[in-house]
């Protein structure tokens, strides 16, 4: 097991390193640079260009820029954002809580509601509830999240005035407000974006879980369990569901990067101060340090997601380790 784990970790580190190298050089190879966009309205004098290039290290050859980036990465320093003029690590750290909160709530909804509904569908296979849930899940899967976000914001926030349409907190909330009021305030702001983002992912999880459960429910050991007189609940959750989790573990690994990337569109529609919108703005402005910082974070998470999935497989199924 230890050798397997070591080999798998080495693979993950290699994949991460390759991703970082590719990201760095592809980004530099893309047309447009961070300073050209500043000259749309006003020309930049040669001295001004030189000063700004030196300030951001853009006057160095690409190889030297890469070495400098690697040195910084090792020390946890991702440079200074060209757009914000502040350390990238600090910008990422400021946006990370909002991102984790939104991504975490989406994953939570996804892997609670989605799994539960998927299991219900499988257990009631062919019945009216199964057909209705199938229709609903397909509708949810087909709905563009930005459109759903706009509709929810209009209906719930403007027409019914039940929830705020955007932001993460009420700026007018008294500084003396207690923890409960502050938590409630953040929750109120969280509901619409997390529902919007969850709609698609819950639908996907439902479909996966339903199919996996149907496969397991047809197996002989389930018939044996029933023959032993176990309750439906015990058969479903203790015997069938645990064996139907493997495809969903794969899905979890794929969804994990959502924790960081969120959805650029949904973050924009709800003015959610997460990393997705920060990274999207960095792409438009060719803010290399910020873009690299966000990309490194996402790459790390994708690789970690894959590693965790494999680990979970190995822990749950010894055949994976042996293979």
């Amino acid at each position, binding site marked *: 097991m230890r050798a397997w784990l070591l080999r798998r970790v080495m693979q993950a580190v290699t994949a991460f390193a390759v991703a970082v190298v590719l990201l760095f050089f592809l980004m530099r190879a893309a047309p447009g640079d961070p300073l050209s966009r500043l*000259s749309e309205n006003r020309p930049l004098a040669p001295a001004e260009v030189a000063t700004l290039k030196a300030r951001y290290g853009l006057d160095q050859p690409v190889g030297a820029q890469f070495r400098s980036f690697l040195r910084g990465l090792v020390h946890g320093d991702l440079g200074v954002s060209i757009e914000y003029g502040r350390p990238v690590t600090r910008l990422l750290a400021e*946006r990370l809580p909002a991102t984790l909160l939104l991504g975490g709530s989406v994953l939570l909804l996804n892997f609670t509601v989605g799994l539960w509904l998927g299991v219900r569908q499988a257990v009631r296979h062919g019945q009216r509830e199964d057909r209705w849930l199938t229709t609903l899940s397909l509708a949810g899967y087909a709905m563009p999240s930005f459109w759903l976000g706009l509709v929810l914001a209009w209906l719930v926030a403007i027409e019914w*005035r039940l929830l*705020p*349409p955007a932001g993460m907190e*009420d700026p007018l909330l008294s500084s003396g407000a207690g923890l409960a009021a502050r938590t*409630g305030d953040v929750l109120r702001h969280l*509901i619409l974006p997390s529902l919007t983002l969850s709609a698609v992912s819950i639908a996907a999880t439902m479909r996966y879980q339903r199919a996996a459960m149907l496969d397991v429910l047809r197996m002989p050991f389930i018939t044996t369990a029933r023959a032993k007189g176990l309750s439906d609940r015990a058969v479903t959750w203790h015997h069938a569901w645990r064996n139907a989790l493997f495809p969903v573990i794969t899905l979890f690994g794929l969804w994990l990067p959502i924790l960081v990337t969120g959805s650029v569109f949904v973050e*924009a529609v709800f*003015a959610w101060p997460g990393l997705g919108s920060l990274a999207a703005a960095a792409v438009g402005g060719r803010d290399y340090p910020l873009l690299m910082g966000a990309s490194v974070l996402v790459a790390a998470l994708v690789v970690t997601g894959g590693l965790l999935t494999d680990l979970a497989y190995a822990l749950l199924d010894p055949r994976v380790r042996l293979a």
Partner: protein
Amino acid sequence: MSRTIGYLSAAMLAGIAVPANAQSAGAENSIVIVTGQQPTTPIPTLMEGAAASLGNMELADQLFLRLAGLGPTMLTAGDRGFVPLLARSWTRRDSVTLVFDLDPRARWQDGVPVTSRDVLFSFQRAQNPAVAPRLAALLQHITGVTAEGDRRVVFRFSHPYSEQLYDATFHVAPLPAHLLDTLPPDAVARSSFVTQPVGSGPYRLVRIVPGQFVELAANEKFFLGPPKITRVIIRFATDPDARLNLVLSGQADAMDNVIPPLDNVRRVSADSSLRLIPVPSPALGFLLFNQRDPADTSRPHPILSDARVRRAITLALDRSSMVRVVFGNYGEVPYGPVSPVLWIRHGAPKPAQQNVAESRRLLAAAGWRDTDGDGTLDRGGQPLALRLSLPSTSAVRRQLALLVQEQLRQVGMRVELSQMEFPLWIERRTAGNFDIDFGSTSQDPSPSGLSQGWTCNGGTNVGHYCSPRVDSLMERAVLTRENPAEAWRQVLQQIEADAPATFLYAPTYVYAVKRRFRDVTISPASSWQRLWEWSVNR
């Protein structure tokens, strides 16, 4: 599992149940403004490079006062169009010397008086190219700033010109020397002053919540009178729909850039608690013609170097209808490269109306005819085909480009739209790699900035337009101190005649503001600059 779902639902409901307005006392004296621009470094002399953004400048205007402000006429020439701020008065010693007397009541927010030492310190930093290359270039005509006692500052200029007062007051707001002059210039950006600035303006910075909002509190000791609105929240939302939703749901009191899209006007108008306030904008959209061959810039452009073709394009377009389609009543067709914020637009002639017959005549005179009957004009076997480059990020330009394409097709021109990502578009534009470029600019209130785009050696003259007559007229307009309006009118007439571009639209910015606010003034130069004079209906 069912229980888990139940707990989650309960938590959600608890979130909803918490009072939506657990707001601080005095919220009625607050204003929440929603904008798309997020400030990062709202400190004079530090707003360079990407930090020279509207978001930073507008916030800096709340925190720091200038010596004088642009008055409602936005007249930048001469000394009459300005209102006193930190300086209570100014006089001229001669044609190159301006003397400012500081208001003795002016104080920094820590109570220390504003003195000539602060002005000197700030201009030393601003004129240092290593510290503030943008400002140093803008202030190049100021040759010296000296103090005569604590309250008098003397500015000397390299030569007589009409915008000396503008240059001395518009670009730099003084910084507190007593807090900053011990810091090396490059250390200020990393100092606590950036997050806890001490200014001289009507508001002080309370906190910046990254990615969400900035909170300001009234400077109760503001020497021009304490602001009646005591708390200001500036929220950020990059998405226009999110901004409008915040206002329509009652979560914000004011927003900028209500349009585009035009339908937003209807939505805001339907809310009786809101009013629309149109304000002249510094924006201008135009089709810039490349007069050099993009493949070899040493050669003239095979089609667009001919002024008759350029004029024909302008005359073929129904610009008034285009502006109406996109901006409704909140836009106009400009005469020359002049946005509504420039004072030289007053008295300018009306822009030419669409005249398809004249357009066709000009093209025919230039040798373009449809010899093969395919609907596209040609000359010497070459079709009259052009590429129109535009950034895919601009919905307005995308919409208008389609109209341009269709209207030019009707006079026999084939226009291929080339939409591209903003950085790629700006790179190609800067390199002169285009036939027609759909440009948009945001102008300073000073017309002298026009020299950058429309003189032979102008820094943003990427279309290679060169008219020695315009250069000479513009130089005279910038330098003259007598009737500069007439000099500028001649500049505009010549540019219109040369048609280096088709000037398509000059929008009016539309703001939505709750009716509960009175004495509302929105400045074209800096939207919320006069916020300290607003009051609230009881």
